[in-house]
C-alpha cells in the first residue's frame, strides 16, 4: 500500500515584505522553504511507514527548483519523490493544481494501491486550504481535514479513525480507505534528517513527470484551467490606531505621549 504525501515549496513568508508603493510582494532574495504544514504531513506518512511498512511517495507540483523540497522529504526517509513540472502546469490556481495532483495520484494507483493521501491543511503562501479537499473530490475518496491525531488505522479492515481539531472542540471520525487527510501542526513533531540520509538524498533520483506522462487536457490545467485570478495584493489599510511620537529616535518622549494618552482615556490609574 502506498502513502502519498503532497508537499509544496513556498517562499519563507516571514521574510516576504510588501512593497509599500506597488503593494506587491517583494519576492527577490526570499528563500524557499517546505510549507511548514507539509512537514507534518511527511512526518505522518513516515510514521505510517514505520508502523505498517507502507511505501511513502512525496509529490510536489512546481518549477524545477522545487526539487529541493522533495530532496528534503527524501532525506527524512520517503521512498520515492516525484516532481510534477511542466510549463503547462504553471500559473495554476487551487482547482488546476488539484487536478494535476489527483491525476498523478491516480497514475500511481495504477501500479500500487494508494491507501492514504496526506496534505498539510494549507500552504502559507496561498492560505486557501482548498487543494487537499480538491484532490479528494477528484479521487472520489473520503476527506478528513484538520487532523491532529491519527487514532487508529487498520489495514486489514481498511479503516482509519482520526481526531479533527475544530474551533473549540475535537471531533473523532472514521472513514474507509482510501482516504485523504489534511493535517495541522499539532499532529506530530517532524523528525530531523541524519547526515547519512541527507547525503543519500543528494544523490537520490527525483522523478520528473510532465504533462506527457499525465496526458491532461492543456486547457484544463495551468493558467488556462484556472478560474481564479489574482487581481491585486495589498496591505489592508489601518482602520484604527495611530503612531505616537518617534519611538525609534526618542523612546522616552514616545512613552510619555503613550502614558498621557492612556491617562486621558482613563486606561491607567495613578
Amino acid at each position, binding site marked *: 500500500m502506498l502513502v502519498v504525501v503532497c508537499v509544496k515549496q513556498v517562499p519563507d513568508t*516571514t*521574510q516576504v515584505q510588501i512593497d509599500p508603493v506597488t503593494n506587491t510582494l517583494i519576492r527577490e532574495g526570499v528563500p524557499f*522553504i517546505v510549507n511548514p504544514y507539509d512537514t507534518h504531513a511527511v512526518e505522518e506518512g513516515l510514521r505510517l511507514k514505520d508502523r505498517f511498512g507502507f511505501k511513502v511517495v512525496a509529490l510536489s507540483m512546481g518549477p524545477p527548483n522545487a526539487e529541493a523540497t522533495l530532496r528534503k522529504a527524501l532525506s527524512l526517509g520517503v521512498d520515492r519523490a516525484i516532481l510534477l513540472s511542466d510549463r503547462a502546469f504553471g500559473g495554476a490556481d487551487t482547482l488546476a493544481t488539484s487536478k494535476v495532483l489527483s491525476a498523478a495520484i491516480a497514475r500511481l494507483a495504477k501500479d500500487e494501491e494508494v491507501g492514504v493521501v496526506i496534505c498539510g491543511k494549507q500552504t502559507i503562501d496561498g492560505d486557501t486550504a482548498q487543494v487537499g479537499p480538491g484532490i479528494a473530490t477528484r479521487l472520489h475518496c473520503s476527506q478528513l481535514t484538520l487532523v491532529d491525531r491519527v487514532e487508529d488505522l487498520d489495514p486489514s479492515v481498511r479503516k482509519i479513525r482520526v481526531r479533527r481539531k475544530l474551533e473549540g472542540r475535537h471531533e473523532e471520525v472514521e472513514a474507509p480507505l482510501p482516504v485523504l487527510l489534511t493535517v495541522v501542526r499539532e499532529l506530530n513533531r517532524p523528525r*530531523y534528517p541524519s*547526515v547519512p540520509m541527507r547525503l543519500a538524498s543528494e544523490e537520490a533520483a527525483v522523478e520528473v513527470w510532465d504533462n506527457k506522462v499525465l496526458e491532461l487536457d492543456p486547457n484544463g490545467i495551468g493558467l488556462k484551467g484556472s478560474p481564479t485570478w489574482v487581481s491585486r495584493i495589498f496591505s489592508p489599510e489601518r482602520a484604527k490606531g495611530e503612531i505616537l511620537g518617534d519611538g525609534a529616535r526618542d523612546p522616552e518622549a514616545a512613552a510619555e505621549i503613550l502614558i498621557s494618552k492612556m491617562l486621558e482615556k482613563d486606561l491607567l490609574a495613578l
Partner: protein
Amino acid sequence: MIPHYTLFTPLLIASLAFFGWSVYRRFSLLALGQPEQRLDRPFDRLKEMLLYAFAQMRVVKKPFGFNHLVIFWSFLILMLANGEFMVSGVIPSLNFGLLPEGVHRALLLAFDIVSLLTLVAIAVSVGRRLFVRPSYLDTAYVKGISADAFLILSFIALLMVAYFGMHGGLIAQGNDPAAAAMPVSSFVAGMLPSDPATLSAIFGFFWWLHALVLLAFLCFLPHSKHMHILTAIPNCYLASLEWPNTQPREKFAKGEVYGVGRVDRFSWKDLLDTYSCTECGRCQAACPATATGKPLNPRQIVHAIKTNLLENGLAIKEGKAPTVPLIGPEGEGTNTEDAIWSCTTCGACLQACPVLIEQMPKIIKMRRHLVENEARFPEELLNLFENMEQRSNPWGIAPAERSKWVSTMQVKTFEKGETEYLLYVGCAGSFDSRAKQVTVALATVLNAAGVSWGILGKDEKCCGDSLRRLGNEYLFDKMARENVELFRERGVTKVITLCPHCLTTLKNDYRQFGLELEVVHQSELVAKLLADGKLNLPRKELGLGKISYHDPCYLGRHNGIYDAPREVVAKATGSAVQELPRHRENSFCCGAGGGRMWMEEFTGERVNHARVEEALAENPDTICVACPYCMTMMEDGLKDKGAGQVRVRDVVEVVAEGLRPL
C-alpha cells in the same frame, strides 16, 4: 645475606609476567581507537609534561595536592630502591654497594628520608579520606573506589614500614657499615631487641613483607584506577596543545560515520585519557551540571568510557558487536543521553584535570553521533536546527531584521579599504532586545574613540557556535564555509565581536576552514582604547554601586581574556570590580553555553540560579558581564530570585554610560 632468593626469583618472574600481560592487554585496547596526531611539537609536549606531570602544577592547586606531590616524587626516588631490591633479590651481589661509597651513602640517606616523608604523606591521605573527605571524592555511580584507594595507601604504608623494619633489623645486627647514612632506620634499630636470632627473624620478616607487598602492588596496579601511575605522565605529554580545545572537522561523504557511538570510535588518546583518570573528582567538583543536580558528571563519563572499553574491547578486537552500549540506559559502562546533553561546554573540567584529560570533547563527539547518525536530540533543538538552517539565527527571525538596531544611529556597511574593522554583531546583538542595547553602546563607544568600523548588515550570518557545541557538525560545517567565503569576498581581516561565542568561533574554529582573522572581543578593544587615552569619559559617578564581574566561560577559560573586561570597568568607574568567590579560570558557568541556551533545564537546580545566588551573597549592586548569553541568564536568574534591584550591565555599557555628557 639475602634470604630465600631461590623462592623470590620465581615469584618475581611470575609477578612481572602478570604485570606485563595485564599492561599489554590494556594498552593493546588503545589500538582500537581512531588515529589522532599527538606526537607533533615534541618540545611543547615535553614542557607540558614537565609542568603538569613532574611539577604537578594542577595537582598542587588544591591544598592536599602538595601531599600528592610528595608521594609522587618519593615514588620516583624509591623506584631506585625498589629496583635494587628486586635485582639484588635475584642476584644478591648486584646492589648499590657496588657504587662509589659517597653515592651509595647519599642514596641511602635519600631513601631513608623519603620513606619517612611518604609515610607521613600516606597518613595525611588516609586522614583526609577518613576525616576531611571532600564531597567530590564521592559519586553516585562509582562504587568501591575508595576501597581501592585505601588498599593502595596501605600497600604503600606497608612498604615503608617494611623498609624501615628491614634496614632497622640490619643496623641493629651491627653489620651495616652505612648505618650513619640512615637516621630513620637507625632510630628504628634502637627500638629493636638486641638478641641476634630475633633480629635475624625481624629482618627476614620485613624483607618478605617488603617483597610480597611490592609484588602485590605490581600485580594490582594495572587492574585499578592506580593505572594512572603508568599513564598520567605520557598523558600529559600527549595532551592537546590546542587551547581552546576545539572540535576537529569531520569529513562528509557516503559511507562515513560521524561522532562516537561506539567506544572504538574514540581516538586512541581519548581511550588513554580514561586510563589516566584516578578518580580524583576535581572535574566533578568544577562541573556546573554536576553541581546543580544534572545527570552529568565528567568523571563518570571518563569512567564509563573506560569500563565500556574493558567490557567490549575483546569482542571488538574479534570483530564482534559490543555487548555494553556506550550510549544508552543508565548502567555501568554506559553514558545516558541526558548526561551527554547536560554539558554547557564551559571547560571547567578541562581546566581542573591535573593530568589534562579532555572530558568535554568526548561529550561533543557523542553528541555528534546522536545528532548526525541518529538524528536524536532534545526536542527543543529541532526548532533551533531548522531556524539556523533556514534563517541563519537561533530564533528564526527574518535575516532582513539583522540591522534593525541601526535605526537609532548612522552605521557604515563594511567596505574593504574604507573601514578597518568588521563589527560582527552576532545573532544576540542583532535580535535580542537586551543585547541590542549592548550593540548600540558598543557602537557609541567605537564612534567616540574614532575607530573605523562597519557591519555586514543583513548579509551577516550566524557563526554557528551553538551548532558545533551541540554536535550538529554537518550544519556548522556548511555555515562556517559560507561565512569564510563571505569574509574572503568582502576582504575582512580584522573583526570585533560583541559575543565571546562569536569570538571563539571566528578566531579558533574558522582556522580549521583556512581563515585566519584578527579577532578581538569588544572588551579587549575597549580596554586598549581606554589605555591609549582614545576615550574621554566625563562621567565618573555612574550610580552602579558595587560591581561584581562574572567571567563568561568562552571569554575567560576558552580564550584567556580575564583582565580586559576588569580593566574596562576599573577605568570607567575608578574602582576595581569585586571578585565573585569563583572567578577567572575557576568561574562558574551561567548555564547557557554548549547550546544549553536553547534547551530547557528539567532536572535539578537551574545553573543560572546557582550562579546568581553565589553573586548575591556578595551583595553587589551591579553584575557586569561580557557576553549576551550571560546577560540573559543573569537577568533571568535575578528576576527569579526576586533580586530585580541588582542591575546587569555589559562592560561596554559601563563605558558608554561614562561617555554621556555631564
